[in-house]
C-alpha cells in the first residue's frame, strides 16, 4: 500500500518556497526597479520606461568614488586579515598545545558572536579623540594632539579587519589542522628545513582553506554597512551606505536599486576572480607535486 509518491526534493520545498517568496521575489523586484526611474519628488520609483540610465548615474564620478573606496577597503581589509590571521591560525593548529585548541577556538568565536554593532561601538570608544587610547598615547608621548582616526577611512579599515578577522582565522585553522603532523615530519625526515617544509608542504596543502578564508572575509566585507556607518562618518563612505541613503533619505529607489545590483555584481565578479586567480596560481605547483610524488612512489 504505497501512498502518494513524493518527488526526491519534497523535503526541500518548504525552505525553497520560503526563500523564493522572501528573497528571490524581492531581490528580483530590486533588479526590475533598477531599470526604472524616479518620477518627481514624491515618487520613489517608476518602471513604465525602462533603461540603463540609473546604472550610468550610479557610476557617475560622485558615486564612482564610493565604489572605488569600497573596493579599496575590501581588498586592503581582506589582505590585512590574511596577513594577521595566517600566523595565528598556524600557531593555533601547529604550535599551541593540543589540549588547549578547543579553548583557543572558543576565544576566536567569542568576538565573532558578539553583537556586530556593539563591538564596532567598542572601537568607537577606543578611537575617539577624547577617549582613553588618545589620552594614553598623548601621555606616553607617541602622538602630539588627540587621536584623529575616528571617522576616517583608517578607522573603517581597522573596524572591518577586526570584524572579519575570525572568519579568516577559523578556515585557516581548519586547513592547517587537516594537514596534520605526519606530513610535516616526513618532510623534515627527508631533509627539508622549517621554511621549505612550510612553503612546500604545509602552505600548498592549506591553500583551499586560504581561498575559503579570503572569500568568507571579502564577500561580507564588501557589503558592509554597519562598520562604515559607526566608524566612517562622511569620509569613509561605502556602497552599502549609499544604497541605504538612496532608499531612505533620497527616496530614489530606482537609483538605489541600480547601486545594489552593481554592488552584488562587483562582489560576485571579484570573488570569482580571487578564486580563479588562486586556482591558476596553484596549477604549476600541482603539476610539480604530482611529478615528485610519482617519482618517489
Amino acid at each position, binding site marked *: 500500500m504505497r501512498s502518494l509518491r513524493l518527488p526526491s526534493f519534497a523535503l526541500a520545498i518548504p525552505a*525553497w518556497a520560503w526563500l523564493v517568496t522572501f*528573497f528571490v521575489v524581492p531581490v528580483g523586484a530590486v533588479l526590475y526597479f533598477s531599470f526604472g526611474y524616479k518620477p518627481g519628488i514624491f515618487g520613489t520609483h517608476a518602471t513604465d520606461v525602462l533603461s540603463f540610465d540609473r546604472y550610468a548615474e550610479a557610476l557617475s564620478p560622485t558615486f564612482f568614488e564610493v565604489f572605488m573606496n569600497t573596493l579599496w577597503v575590501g581588498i586592503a581589509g581582506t589582505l590585512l586579515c590574511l596577513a594577521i590571521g595566517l600566523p595565528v591560525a598556524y600557531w593555533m593548529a601547529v604550535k599551541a*598545545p593540543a589540549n588547549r585548541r578547543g579553548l583557543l*577556538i572558543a576565544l576566536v568565536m567569542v568576538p565573532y558572536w558578539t553583537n556586530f554593532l*556593539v563591538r564596532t*561601538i*567598542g572601537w568607537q570608544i577606543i578611537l*575617539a579623540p577624547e577617549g582613553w587610547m588618545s589620552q594614553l598615547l598623548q601621555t606616553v608621548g607617541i602622538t602630539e594632539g588627540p587621536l584623529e582616526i575616528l571617522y576616517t577611512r583608517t578607522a573603517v579599515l581597522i573596524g572591518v579587519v577586526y570584524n572579519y578577522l575570525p*572568519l579568516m582565522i577559523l578556515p585557516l585553522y*581548519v586547513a592547517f589542522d587537516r594537514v596534520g603532523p605526519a606530513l610535516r615530519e616526513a618532510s623534515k625526515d627527508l631533509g627539508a628545513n622549517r621554511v621549505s617544509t612550510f612553503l612546500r608542504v604545509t602552505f600548498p596543502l592549506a591553500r583551499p582553506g586560504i581561498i575559503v578564508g579570503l572569500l568568507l572575509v571579502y564577500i561580507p566585507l564588501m557589503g558592509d554597512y554597519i562598520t562604515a556607518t559607526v566608524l566612517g562618518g562622511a569620509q569613509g563612505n561605502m556602497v552599502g551606505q549609499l544604497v541605504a541613503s538612496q532608499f531612505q533619505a533620497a527616496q530614489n529607489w530606482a537609483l538605489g536599486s541600480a547601486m545594489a545590483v552593481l554592488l552584488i555584481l562587483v562582489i560576485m565578479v571579484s570573488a570569482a576572480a580571487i578564486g580563479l586567480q588562486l586556482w591558476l596560481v596553484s596549477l604549476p605547483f600541482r603539476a610539480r607535486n604530482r611529478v615528485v610524488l610519482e617519482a618517489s612512489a
Partner: protein
Amino acid sequence: MTTTAPETTTDAASRAPEASAPRTTDAPLARRARRSPVDIGLTVWSVLVFLFLFAPIIVILVYSFNNGRLLIAWNEFGFEPYRALWEKPAVRDAVAVSLRTGAIAAVLATLLGTLAGIALARKPGKWALWFIGLLLLVSVTPEIVDAVALLPWLVFLGQDAGLSIFNDGTVRLVVGHSLFSTAVVTYIVRARLVGLDAQLEEASADLYARPLTTFRRVTLPLAMPAVLAGLLLSFTLSLDNTVVAAFVQVSGSTPWPVYVLSALRGGLRPEIAAVSTVMLLLTLAALALVAVVLKRAGDSATQIARTMSGG
C-alpha cells in the same frame, strides 16, 4: 642544574633544553624543548592578535559600569547603567522584542533548514545544484540589499495585497531574520548527514519501517546535534541582526540592535553597554550549549569550529 628527574617542571625544561631528553613521551616537554625564535615570534603575535580581538569587548564590559551620562566619557564606577534594564520601558521592550523574534525565527529557520538539509544529503540530484545555488546566493547577498529589497515587498504584501499579517512587527522581523539562518541550518544539517552513512536508514527500511517511521526514529536522531546547533546559531544570528531589522521593523516593536543603532545618532548612553553585556552573556551561554551538544555528539574541536563559522 640537572633535569634528569621525571618530575621536572616545564619551566626548568625550557631553560635547559639540552639537558632534557630530546624526544620523551611527554609531549609538552618535548615541544618546549624545541622552542626557536620563530616559535616565540608566532606565540607573541598570536597573543597580540587575541588582545586585539578582545579589546573592544573588554572596553564595552568596563564602560558598562560607567555612571556617567555619556558612554564615551568615563565618569565613575557604578551599577547605574544596569538599572535601565528594568527601569526604562523602551530598553526592556527592545530586549523582549529581540528575544521573542529570535526564538520564533530560530524555530522557523531550523524547521525549514533541517528538512532541506536532509533532502540535500539523502536525495541528491540535479535539483540539489539549483537549490545550493539559491542558498549560496542568499549567503553572499549583502544584508543591506536584503533589507532594501524586503521593505517594499513587505509593505506591498501588507498594504496593497491586503495580507495584514505582514504589517505586524514581529512577523516582519521573523521573515527578515529567517532567510540567512535557513541557509546556515541547511548547510549544517547537510554536512552532518553527508558524513554519516545512509546504511542505518536502509537497514530501517529493510526491516519494514515506513518512510515516516524511518525519518522520525533514525534520520532525525542522527541529525539531532546539527539541528540543535542550527537552532542556537539561528537564535544568536537573529539577536545580532541589525541591518535588515532596521529597515523592516515597525515602530513599537524595535529590536535591541536597532534601538542601539538609532541611539548612535543622539549620543550613546552607558546603558547601551550594560544591556549589551547582558546580551553577550546570553549569546555565550547559547554558544557554549552548541559546543557541548556537538562535543557530546563526538565532534572534534576542528569540526565544531567549522560548524560554528557557518558550515
